[in-house]
């Protein structure tokens, strides 16, 4: 599209002002306050003391023993590691499944294609909380999966397969929540793929695996990268799946932040964890920008 200015500069800024104002005041400033609070001291009765302190960040790595010395405490690093590992695993599963499903859909006749894409979006639009909660019923004690095993008398004295409140349950929840966000961008880039390139590869003696690896995958890379970021970023900070499916003991960054504000009332520490989460998100976004630049250079003219 041509970049012809239909609107002059003064009107342009006037039109952008409300968006700037609302997002600036109610998003950017809160984030700045959050960073500031992460460097303050906790008031155990709620709120903060306005004193500069790095206690919140120290607390992430160390704890004080009886003598008041700092001792390395891996507990929060474990939570960080769990969050990253779960988000990465969910992303990997989503890439594998999402790419396969997207390729399947793209190979269907146009009318069926639209229907299949539409079918993906429906559950995606329904309440996330409610859908995650449904997995409690499915995975939980005596739930949908347990029932047939119970009927066959295959369950032990505890009466459950013990699927709920595990890392696997969180992973299922994350995969379930974010899989559509992977399928759709991959589908979008596969749909744009010129199928004659696939025919050309096959015409030039490439078998199907080689064709996928050398032709389809490189050309769908922008979609895969976009999907990976759309899954990884929210999965890293997800609160619902860990909270509902992981149980109290399996905290992730998201549920840790929520816990600090809702229960522990340690604002500086909660803010510090939120800042750490935000740093990870921004780092993955920076990586995304670099990757897409590279993919853009190597890809289509």
């Amino acid at each position: 599209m041509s970049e012809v200015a239909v609107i002059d500069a003064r009107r342009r800024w006037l039109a952008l002002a409300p968006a700037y104002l609302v997002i600036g005041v109610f998003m950017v400033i809160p984030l700045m306050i959050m960073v500031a609070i992460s460097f303050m001291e906790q008031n155990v009765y709620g709120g903060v003391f306005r004193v500069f302190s790095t206690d919140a960040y120290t607390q992430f790595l160390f704890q004080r023993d009886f003598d008041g010395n700092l001792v390395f405490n891996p507990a929060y690093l474990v939570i960080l590691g769990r969050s990253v590992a779960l988000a990465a695993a969910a992303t990997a599963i989503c890439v594998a499944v999402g790419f396969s499903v997207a390729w399947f859909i793209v190979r269907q006749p146009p009318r069926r294609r639209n229907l299949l894409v539409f079918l993906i979006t429906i559950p995606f639009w329904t309440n996330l909380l409610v859908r995650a909660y449904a997995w409690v019923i499915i995975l939980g004690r005596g739930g949908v999966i347990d029932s047939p095993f119970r009927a066959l008398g295959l369950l032990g004295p505890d009466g459950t397969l013990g699927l709920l409140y595990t890392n696997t349950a969180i992973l299922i929840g994350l995969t379930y929540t974010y899989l559509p966000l992977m399928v759709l961008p991959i589908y979008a880039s596969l749909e744009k793929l010129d199928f004659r390139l696939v025919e050309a590869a096959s015409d030039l003696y490439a078998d199907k695996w080689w064709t996928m690896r050398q032709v389809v995958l490189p050309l769908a890379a922008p979609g895969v990268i976009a999907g990976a970021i759309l899954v990884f970023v929210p999965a890293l900070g997800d609160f619902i799946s860990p909270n509902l499916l992981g149980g109290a003991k399996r905290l992730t960054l998201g549920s840790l932040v929520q816990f600090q504000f809702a229960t522990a009332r340690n604002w500086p520490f909660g803010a510090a964890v939120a800042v750490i989460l935000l740093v990870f998100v921004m780092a993955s976004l920076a990586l995304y920008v670099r990757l897409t630049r590279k993919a853009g250079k190597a890809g289509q003219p």
Partner: protein
Amino acid sequence: MSESIAGTEAIGIRNAVKRYGDFTALKGVTLSIADNEFFTLLGPSGCGKTTLLRMIAGFEAVSEGEIVLYGERIAHLPPDKRPVNTVFQHYALFPHMSVFDNVAFGLRRLRKPPGEVERTVREMLALVHLQDFADRLPGQLSGGQQQRVALARALAPHPQVLLLDEPLSALDLKLRQAMRGELQRLQRDTGITFVFVTHDQEEALAMSDRIAVLRAGEVQQVGTPEDIYLRPENRFVADFIGDTNFIEARVERVLEGAAELIIDGGIRVRARLSHRVAPGEAVTLSLRPENIVITAPGEGLAEARVLAQTFLGPNSLVTLELPGGTRLHWRRSNQSGGGQGLGPGESVGLRFAEDAIAVLRS
């Protein structure tokens, strides 16, 4: 060139049928393409020519029938198992690979040693005059250059047959005409059988050893460009290739390979026969506009009146009317010194060149 196929058969298509649901794209096509031949599939869009080409390449499965490549049945083989390569209509170059890697793609898949890959790719790029473009990406090339990369890529594995799907259609007119000669040269130099698909009759006439004209999934006529143009067998072929006059006629007398016919309610003409007709039968004749010879009034086979004249540059198209009301187009050369134009209402005499009239199959 060949009147009939003399040499080895490169491709045999035996009663090939292609159905999509209840739509039949090919209705039992049988063709035999000779080794080292430049063979063209010609027809309007939707006639099934591309489907037929894609069936030879293996992109489409045959619903019925068989395809034979140098004596071997290949209809059941996937494209990567067939020693034929395709030049795609819009080239289908891999946009993320350099020109070199594009051309090397097939060779590497055939597990040729790196040295041979390198040598062959250079050779192919030289063949299409693109030696200096090996490291470019396809997006950095012009349309004509991309088209030559596509040729090099398809020729590099030295296929038994090269399939070309309207490869010139995306080029502008000048380049398209230049590429015609180039393609013929490549075909001669490589000795590979070319099967060429086009809807452009001029292209087909200019390049082919033989042409098959298709319409609605059926072969209408197979023959040399001369056969097709000068001796069209049916109305469709006569109409699709070049301009022609259709004349309703009645068979008067059947002779050896020819017939005497009556046109325009009384004019007696002689025409060549490619099929059997019976005396008294009503038939349609085809007469090319350039095959009408104008004489002074009273000196020709018949009299005609000039209705209109359209100037077309190298020639003019003159509309004539015979006494019985039949209208004919006459193509008149505008060569300098060719005399002055004819005015509407003027009377002329006319006759027809020898062998100029073809009796069409109904």
